[in-house]
């Protein structure tokens, strides 16, 4: 069990790292939203799921409920995160945020 948890945590961290690096590396704000919106979601899903699993390692009713609550966080997060991402991108468009375009010559 511990190993599963550890691996999931590590995977979650990998995605989080991807998100963090992504928002640093991507050229414009729209493309930064992709790692920020998605990888964060999956990262938190993995980590929280790992923690929920860890919680289930002592299988009592209380712990199960806590695990469910942790998963509830995930559920809310899955609803809220894309919405937030969408809100931000919409705001960006309405605010007239210019987008980064690939230089035409590089397009395949």
């Amino acid at each position, binding site marked *: 069990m511990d190993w599963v948890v550890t691996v999931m*945590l590590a995977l979650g961290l990998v995605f989080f790292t991807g998100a963090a690096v992504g928002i640093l590396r991507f050229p414009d704000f729209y493309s930064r939203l992709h790692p920020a919106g998605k990888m*964060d979601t999956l990262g938190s899903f993995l980590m929280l799921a790992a923690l929920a699993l860890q919680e289930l390692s002592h299988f009592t009713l209380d712990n199960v409920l806590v695990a469910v609550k942790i998963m509830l*966080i995930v559920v809310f997060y899955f609803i809220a995160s894309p919405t937030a991402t969408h809100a931000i991108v919409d705001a960006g468009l309405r605010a007239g945020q210019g987008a980064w375009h690939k230089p035409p010559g590089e397009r395949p």
Partner: protein
Amino acid sequence: MDKIFLYAGLALCALMLASLYRGVFGPTVLDRLIGVNAIGSKTTVLLVLVGFLFHREDMFVDIALAYALLNFVAVLAASRYFQKRGGLG
């Protein structure tokens, strides 16, 4: 196991630093918003992790839950601002 949680937590802090870079150095306000939003998601996880470190995860889950629900409000408010006022500084 605690060690792993601890290191995971520290790793999250380090990642927050990276997101914070976007938050502090922009360049546009929306970039800041992305950075802060990213910090928010890590915070949620970190809170639960801290709960595990204290062995009182049942107590910390509520906070994380509240956080997950409310973090959204702030981001939404910020994006509403741009939707209504437009313009970027």
